[in-house]
């Protein structure tokens, strides 16, 4: 259930470990760079960078860190940037609740996940309690 598999036609651009809060900054800068290279405009670059920043912080704060894959591929005839966040943390018990605006289990404001979802073109999430969470977002021009 935890598997979100990459399509073979996608190209892996970068793998970033996410262990410290400095890695959050590094990884979101890498994502912005690839968004720029993919030809996204400044607003879309900012949307995807902000969305992944929310996801990275969640991974760091609640998932004990993890790994981020940055890939590119064709999704519904769009040239997409695909970012997959994998953690082996406690998992999310109630995904619907976690996706509710204003809900927060911790010290955040509760806009992390639903907010990130609004900023991207596609959002996929799978989570299993005590095993971890994988979230994949896609953005195209």
């Amino acid at each position, binding site marked *: 259930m935890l598997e979100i598999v990459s399509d073979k036609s996608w190209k892996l651009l970068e793998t970033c470990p996410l262990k410290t809060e400095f890695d*959050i*900054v590094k990884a979101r800068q890498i994502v*912005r760079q690839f968004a720029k290279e993919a030809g996204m405009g400044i*607003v879309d670059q*900012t949307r995807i960078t902000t969305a992944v920043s*929310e996801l990275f912080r969640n991974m760091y704060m609640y998932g004990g860190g993890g790994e981020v894959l940055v890939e590119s591929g064709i999704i519904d005839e769009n040239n997409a940037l695909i970012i997959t966040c994998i953690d082996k943390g406690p998992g999310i018990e109630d995904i619907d609740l976690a996706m509710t605006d204003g809900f927060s289990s911790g010290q955040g404001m509760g806009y*992390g996940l639903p907010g990130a979802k609004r900023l991207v073109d596609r959002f996929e999430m799978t989570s299993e309690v005590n095993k971890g969470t994988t979230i994949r977002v896609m953005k195209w021009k």
Partner: protein
Amino acid sequence: MNYNEKKIPIIKIRDYLIVSIQVDMHDRLALQLQTQILDEIYRTGAKGVLIDISTLEMVDSFIGRVLSGMASKASIMDAAVVIVGMQPSVAITLVELGLEMPGVDTALNMELGMEMLEKRISKD
């Protein structure tokens, strides 16, 4: 690069503190800046704080929360905070993210922000 060594400078001019954030802040740096500004308000008796974010390429919910927290804490200390220079792409993204920053005053640029503070302070 050692992120720990970076510290954001705070400049005092007359009754104001001026802060220009020119780095992509990690969370601890943002929290440290908040404390630094409150300390400076206490130390100098400044009545207003201008925070320039014109070079910030993104504001996520954490940084947004730090900024609005700073504004409400400063206001308890009788200092007004004005955030200036937010890029259009950052404003668009903040609204789409669903983040509200209650109590945060904003101005288009440093000059207008300074006018806003002056008006505010002369009223008191």
